């Protein structure tokens, strides 16, 4: 089933205006890139570079060339081979990923603290079993649990051992990137194998406006060299480091991501990329960073349309999340209104599963609830096709409603299993509900959690590869951890 309903938040003229301004920005103002090797190489490829100020400008020809070399089809592979992700989604759906980077973990009992390594294990065990979650990120393990200089490599070691789905990697230090790549390579039997079937892809972030710090440039450069997919990100905060208007923030985020895509394509034509605009805003009264501001939801829609329609480049943004600190009503209103908008956008990936507190906390209970929400959203994205079969035309004309009624009609027999049924929602009457303990959704999610946690692991890395991964971890530890 192809997706049918799409919101176009921009008119054709507005879309073209965005495109031409974005290109003009990269041509006239350019970017600041803190990476000499990369600057030199991009200069040789035709970019206008000032090595002293590290400023780089693009030309229209280079931009066009880069856009033309973005692959229209590619696959992000899964360690288990069970959840390989073909882009574009063959059924017109979007892919769902978990939240990245949150430092806090809210346990099943509702206690929140910095993420422990045992909780990373739990997270993958639960996430493996979430049928509507397609790929994973790294929880942000506390620097008190593992060496602070190497939380990313330590967490990836867990992920490679336990995660059956594709892993999207967020490095924390420039020097760590090499080890993250080596570790992923070790888990599949070498760099060539990793390039052939990338089971990991990377995050590189801009610093608004149009700055690329050493670490992120290093990520871009290394991935381009290793042939690994990148989902370049911009995380602007409207009103703080980008224009206060949602439009201005969408524009800046998209431009920053676009610049990264252009650089990657110039360095490594055909490299799989997904444009990832993760927009935030600042509350102008409290200065608190917000994820769920209403205008910013629309700004995300702008970015999705700009990349998917404007350039035929796959696009990715938040599909869920909240500024609430609890699994409460604000939380549910924010995440469901966001996903309903985003499901109707052109987005190829929607993220944030399991997060609350503006991307600062993850919760397995929230993840289990999000699994339901994404199920509904995917169904909405698919839409409804109109034809005589779906209308039930023949049975209506035959008067089936009077005899024998629809409950056992052929048409019902054909279609009754199609309707989406959330697993945990109350679908009985009052007496059944009371009989079952008058459970709220959150209580049902806790119950489900206890069931899932007892299930045997759905995946574990083969012991030989696991040992190879451990070897890289040891090397990384030696090289990266300053206070041994």
């Amino acid at each position, binding site marked *: 089933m192809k997706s049918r309903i799409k919101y176009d938040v921009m008119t054709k003229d507005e879309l073209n205006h965005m495109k031409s301004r974005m290109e003009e920005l990269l041509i006239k103002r350019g970017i600041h890139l803190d990476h000499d090797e990369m600057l030199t190489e991009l200069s040789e490829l035709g970019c206008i570079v000032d090595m002293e100020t590290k400023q780089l400008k693009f030309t229209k020809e280079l931009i066009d060339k880069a856009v033309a070399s973005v692959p229209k089809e590619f696959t992000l592979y899964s360690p288990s081979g069970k959840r390989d992700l073909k882009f574009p989604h063959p059924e017109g759906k979007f892919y769902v990923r978990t939240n990245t980077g949150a*430092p806090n973990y809210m346990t099943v009992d509702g206690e929140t603290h910095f993420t422990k390594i045992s909780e990373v294990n739990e997270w993958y065990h639960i996430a493996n079993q979430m049928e509507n979650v397609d790929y994973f990120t790294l929880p942000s393990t506390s620097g008190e649990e593992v060496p602070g200089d190497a*939380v990313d490599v330590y967490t990836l070691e867990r992920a490679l051992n336990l995660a059956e789905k594709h892993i999207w990697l967020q490095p*924390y230090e420039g020097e760590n990137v090499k080890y993250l790549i080596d570790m992923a390579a070790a888990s599949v039997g070498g760099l060539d194998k990793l390039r052939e079937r990338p089971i990991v892809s990377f995050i590189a972030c801009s610093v608004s406006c149009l700055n690329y710090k050493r670490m992120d440039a290093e990520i871009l450069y290394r991935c381009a060299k290793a042939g690994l997919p990148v989902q370049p990100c911009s995380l602007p*905060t409207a009103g703080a480091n980008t224009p206060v208007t949602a439009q201005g923030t969408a524009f800046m985020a998209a431009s920053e991501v676009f610049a990264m895509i252009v650089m990657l394509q110039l360095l490594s034509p055909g490299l799989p990329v997904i444009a990832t605009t993760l927009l935030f805003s*600042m509350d102008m009264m409290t*200065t608190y960073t917000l994820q769920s501001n209403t205008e910013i939801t629309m700004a995300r829609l702008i970015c999705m349309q700009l990349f998917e329609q404007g350039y035929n480049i796959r696009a990715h943004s938040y599909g869920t999340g909240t500024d609430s600190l609890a699994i409460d009503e604000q939380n549910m209103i924010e995440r469901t209104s966001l996903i309903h908008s985003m499901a109707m956008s052109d987005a190829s990936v929607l993220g944030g599963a399991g997060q609350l507190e503006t991307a*600062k906390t993850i919760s397995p209970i929230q993840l289990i609830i999000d699994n339901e929400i994404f199920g509904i959203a995917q169904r909405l994205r698919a839409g409804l096709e109109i034809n005589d079969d779906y209308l039930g035309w023949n049975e209506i004309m035959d008067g089936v409603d009077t005899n024998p009624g629809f409950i056992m009609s052929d048409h019902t027999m054909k279609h009754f299993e199609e309707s989406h049924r959330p697993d945990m929602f109350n679908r009985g009457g009052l007496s059944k509900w009371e009989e079952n303990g008058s459970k709220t959704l959150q209580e049902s999610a806790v119950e489900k959690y206890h069931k899932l946690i007892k299930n045997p692991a759905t995946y574990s890395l083969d012991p030989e590869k696991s040992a190879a991964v451990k070897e890289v971890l040891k090397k990384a530890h030696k090289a990266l951890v300053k206070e041994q």
Partner: protein
Amino acid sequence: MSILNEISELVIEGNIEGTKAKVELAVEQGIGAVSILDEGLMPGINEIGERFAKFEIFVPNVLMSAKAMNISVEVIQPLLTASGAKPIGTAVIGTVKGDLHDIGKNLVALMMKSSGLEVIDLGSDIGADKYIEAIEKYEPDVIGLSALLTTTMNEQGRIIKAIEEKGLRDKIKIMVGGAPVTQAWADKIGADAFTADAADAARWAKNYVVNK
């Protein structure tokens, strides 16, 4: 309305040019610089502070008012210096080593400036050595350490230790903040204060230097 009241109102409005012109007029009329400050500018900015604390106005309102105030203070500065008045205190602020998140730190700096402190902003990715250098050079009352990552908040502790080892700890108050930072963490690493936002940070610092 007296000219001093008018100055207060202009500060509250965030009218930069208007405040400056009115202050110049007051000086011409022979009103003392200390009166202009204490009875004109200060009541205005204090009112803004209160309205902000009650969530009646937005951050840009505060910043515009503070700018109106600061530009006007420059006008009367030579007169103030002659009469012996100085800034209420000095703060040194930065984002700790390994951390590049500077939005929160910038806001803290702005709000502290707005409340009358002199602020030296060291920037981001700042290690103990640079803090120590700044403490020796500027002799601040307060220093602020911002950290946004669970991986870099340890650096706050390291900096505090280094300052202790240098024998400078008793000269200053150390404030810590940033998204993952809590009061418990501040206690653990021996900081003097934690605040959850920039407005409270400025209030704490001002309160400390005024009552020192």
